[in-house]
């Protein structure tokens, strides 16, 4: 008797596992289709650029506060921790290089993308999910207005524009935070702080690579948020689940992409 119970339980478990897997593949395909459709129909968002500007306000400008405050603290912590270790080797002047390189190469793009997914990505998913649940998207289709070109594409381009700007601001504010801790607070020489930084941070291989990273993260984060909203079941529970999934998927994708991009760039 117990044998058959176990048999059924294992079978159900495997079925669920397979179902989930197939569901994920299906969602990947649907996401790719939406991405292609969005690219094709993004002509309108450039002809009516005001649509994009409005979304840049919601995704970018409204994220400024959280980005600047967290950048400031990240920079300060980096300087404190870096000083603590570097002074053991008698090279506390290298603290400027440490803060600048870790921010420009990694933390700037990555932390900005993670915060962006939490601050702007969730808002996009919830907004589009609710538009779908309240049948606003269907209403648009009824009026022969394509929701992809009117709703999805402007938000996508806004995200792609906003994230690199936010990441550049993050790096700059973080470096200023690191400067505040290192120079006035700890007493590292200001000249050595800046000159070592300038000697070791390369424009093309550090700063431009960071910007490239943040553009890629912008595409990934915004597209995931848009797709989760567009794909959400039109119920309260469906929208809430989609919002959670946006944060989880975006974070994982950003970290995985970061590894892949770094391995290409570091050579």
């Amino acid at each position, binding site marked *: 008797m117990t044998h058959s119970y176990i048999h059924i339980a294992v079978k159900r478990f495997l079925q669920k596992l397979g179902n989930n897997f197939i569901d994920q593949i299906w969602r990947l395909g649907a996401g790719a289709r939406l991405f292609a459709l969005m690219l094709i129909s993004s002509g309108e968002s450039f002809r009516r650029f005001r649509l994009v500007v409005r979304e840049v*306000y919601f995704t*970018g400008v409204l994220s400024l506060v959280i980005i600047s405050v967290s950048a400031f603290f990240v920079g300060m912590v980096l300087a404190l921790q870096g000083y603590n270790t570097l002074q053991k080797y008698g090279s506390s002047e290298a603290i400027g290089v440490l803060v*600048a390189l870790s921010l420009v190469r990694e933390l700037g793009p990555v932390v900005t993308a993670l915060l962006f997914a939490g601050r702007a990505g969730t808002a996009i998913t919830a907004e589009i999910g609710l538009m779908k649940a309240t049948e606003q998207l269907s209403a648009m289709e009824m009026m022969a207005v394509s929701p992809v070109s009117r709703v999805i594409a402007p938000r996508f381009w806004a995200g792609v524009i906003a994230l690199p700007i936010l990441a550049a601001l993050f790096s700059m504010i973080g470096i200023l935070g690191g400067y505040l801790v290192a120079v006035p607070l700890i007493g590292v020489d200001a000249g050595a702080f800046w000159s070592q930084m*300038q*000697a070791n941070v*390369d*424009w093309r291989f550090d700063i431009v690579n960071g910007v490239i990273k943040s553009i890629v993260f912008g595409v990934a984060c915004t597209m995931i948020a848009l797709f989760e909203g567009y794909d959400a079941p039109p119920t309260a529970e469906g929208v809430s689940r989609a919002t959670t999934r946006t944060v989880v998927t975006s974070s994982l994708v950003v970290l995985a992409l970061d590894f892949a991009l770094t391995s290409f760039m570091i050579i």
Partner: protein
Amino acid sequence: MERTTIDLWVGIFVALGIAALLGLAMKVGNLTTNTIGATYTVEAAFENIGGLKSRAPVKSAGVVVGRVGDIRFDASTYEAIVSINIDRQFSFPADTFANIYTAGLLGEQYIGLEAGGDEIALKEGDKIMQTQDAVVLEKMISQFLYNKASEPESAAKTPTHDDSVKTDDDALTANAL
């Protein structure tokens, strides 16, 4: 086209972003300090380049005058061929000396150029004939130990013995005590 406050905020946002990028480029990066315009390339062969990497600075009298281009291995001479890109505004004599130095004790390695006295200047594609390899610490230590070992008398005698007429055996035993 009417203007809204949203446009103003987005304008400020984009301006801030451009300012941050400019700040990164000017204040943090080396766009202003180490930009090298048009360059000419010369080659130098080293028996050992140590930890020299491409894009390392090329300095003369401590001033950056160029960058290391690519580094490759010549299988016929078993030497490293380093191509050096020098800024066009600096011309060096043909008998210039190329050394590999280390910045500080643990710093990066760079190429130092010491100008010779030749009338003819280095041109694109020329080869620097006089080079000095990177200092390898292990080599230096082993050479030092070898030199020490090869002259035991002077090494043993130098300590504080006022009477220098003792035999070698006495000196050795005294040293051991």
